[in-house]
């Protein structure tokens, strides 16, 4: 991102102009004067020039402009979060990844309605003002598309020049606010025998997914808030289904209908897509859970370590099944592992940042991370996934990632060197 060059006004010229205007009596008050001198131009010495004024909306420093990485400009497309540019765990809302199947609908908050029906005592329709009156909860959760990492699974072609954004940027973390779905299902009265719901979006794809009722009753939300403000249009404004730990696609955005059922509907997104051929002739279906995973975000391609010495390896770890209990890092291509520090609080079904202080002595090496979650599940190697699922799976590739550091400090994706 090139730095924006402002016009260069020398301090002497500026003083002359300003004094001239003041002398001419055009400035009658201090605020007039501030308007005149407030700087939009980077000053050589910011202590000698007044800064710019308050504004209704904040903005990033002009040199800090992280961007999502776009796939094609098509109705069914995606954009990825710049994981290597971020700190902590919360994704700024305007950098949250996107995946839409029929574009982003323009829905008015006042007009939107959610219909809840099916195997219920009282089918009901809720306006947003109704939903917002129900007792509210806020929770920090990750959201990940199960297609994340699809580019680093091939047995024949492992990339080397891939950024963590391109590889795993279909991952974001937010504080989500909304009403538990269980509260709303209590209102309508779920009938005995019900075991699934169908959730349907109000976008041009009318995207629909079946979700087990147990999950919905357990911890799922009708989310209308994201990081302190109303949820963004790209994330489902005015309300989305949020299923903590489940694959992104099932977290139906622009939610307009929930039908309580006693069996799944087998929509296109849970048959043709989001299913996993296992290499033994079968196809795994309703693989909704996102198992534990971690990825080193620093150092990663295309970073070049400018000198040997102490560097802090950092990354993110997360599990759909609960808390991350441990992240291990290897700096010798997997021969030995050390436990990384976890930056608390370690929240369930959220990302956690891990850190490991590393002295790089200028030799070529491969660094890896592997996460363990509170169920005891250990992030597998790619060989283990190949063995278990064969080569044709295109979702849920949560295997360990590797970065190679060359003797010159250049960092590239290193898994190809390990298989």
């Amino acid at each position: 991102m090139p730095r924006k060059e402002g016009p260069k006004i020398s301090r002497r010229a500026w003083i002359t102009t300003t004094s001239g205007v003041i002398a001419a009596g055009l400035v009658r008050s201090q605020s007039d004067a501030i308007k005149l001198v407030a700087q939009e131009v980077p000053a050589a010495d910011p202590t000698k020039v007044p800064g710019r004024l308050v504004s209704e909306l904040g903005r990033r420093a002009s040199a800090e402009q992280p961007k999502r990485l776009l796939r094609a400009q098509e109705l069914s497309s995606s954009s990825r979060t710049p994981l290597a540019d971020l700190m902590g765990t919360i994704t700024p809302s305007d950098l949250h990844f996107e995946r839409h199947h029929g574009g982003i609908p323009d829905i008015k908050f006042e007009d939107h309605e959610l219909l809840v029906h099916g195997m219920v005592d009282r089918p009901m329709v809720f306006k947003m003002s109704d939903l917002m009156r129900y007792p509210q909860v806020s929770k920090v959760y990750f959201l990940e598309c199960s297609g994340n990492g699809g580019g680093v699974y091939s047995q024949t072609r492992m990339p080397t020049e891939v950024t963590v954004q391109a590889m795993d940027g279909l991952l974001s973390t937010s504080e989500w606010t909304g009403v538990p779905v269980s509260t709303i299902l209590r209102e309508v009265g779920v009938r005995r025998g019900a075991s699934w719901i169908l959730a349907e979006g109000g976008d041009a794809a009318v995207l629909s997914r079946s979700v087990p009722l147990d999950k919905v009753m357990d911890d799922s939300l009708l989310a209308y808030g994201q990081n302190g403000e109303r949820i963004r249009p790209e994330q489902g404004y005015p309300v989305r289904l949020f299923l903590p730990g489940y694959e992104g696609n099932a977290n139906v955005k622009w939610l307009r209908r929930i039908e309580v059922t006693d069996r799944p509907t087998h929509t296109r997104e849970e048959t043709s897509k989001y299913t996993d051929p296992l290499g033994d002739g079968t196809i795994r279906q309703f693989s909704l859970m996102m198992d534990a995973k971690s990825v080193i975000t620093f150092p990663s391609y295309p970073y070049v370590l400018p000198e040997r010495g102490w560097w802090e390896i950092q990354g993110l770890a997360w599990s759909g099944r609960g808390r991350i209990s441990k992240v291990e890092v290897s700096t010798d291509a997997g021969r030995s592992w050390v436990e990384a520090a976890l930056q608390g609080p370690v929240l369930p079904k959220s990302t956690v940042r891990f850190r490991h202080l590393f002295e790089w002595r200028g030799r070529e090496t491969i660094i890896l991370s592997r996460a363990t979650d509170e169920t005891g599940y250990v992030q597998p190697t790619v060989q283990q996934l190949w063995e278990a699922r064969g080569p044709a799976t295109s979702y849920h590739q949560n295997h360990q990632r590797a970065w190679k550091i060359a003797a010159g400090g250049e960092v590239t994706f290193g898994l190809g060197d390990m298989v």
Partner: protein
Amino acid sequence: MRPVDRSNRGSALVVVAALAALLSACDPSPGAFSGAARATEGGAGSGSAEGLPAHAPARFAFGAEASDARVAMWDIDVRPDGDGLPQGSGSVQQGRDVYMVHCIACHGPTGTEGPNDRLVDNSPWDAYPTSRAIGNYWPYATTLYDYIRKAMPQLTPGVLNADQVYGVIAYILYLNEIVPEDAVMSAQTLPAVVMPMRDRFVDDDRTGGPGPVR
């Protein structure tokens, strides 16, 4: 989910039969119980973090009851047993005309050329598929109705009437050599189509924990 009959292991065959019995089997079970009670054991009991406080009323009743007409207006999904399929019918011939006007631009003259998703491929596979198209991957023909009615044609979703949707499905199934050239799709015939790969689908067996990688 009603257990899917997996005994009929998939050969690419045509079964077109009346399904009246199946169609009536999908009504919600009438045995209602207290609206305030929870239907699932593993559900968010009052003790869970998301649960309501003890003094919460049995019902808040924010929101309005939805009339049957209101539900019918939006209840457009279609399930494998045919539940949700509307009246109407369409033949392979009629579907060809629909396809040539509404689908060809994005899915190609024979459903294989793109630029968007390949709709025709019935090449068999053994251990794993090299392509995932309707003829060699999709488990249920009814999903075509659910999806096309909701999402296709992509730039003008919803323009097709029921007869046209049935027709274009008949045509796509015919191109995949799943139904014969004289097939007519309707609420009766579509759920009876057995898709070649139907019985390949299995439920998720991953459980977390330290066990073997799945």
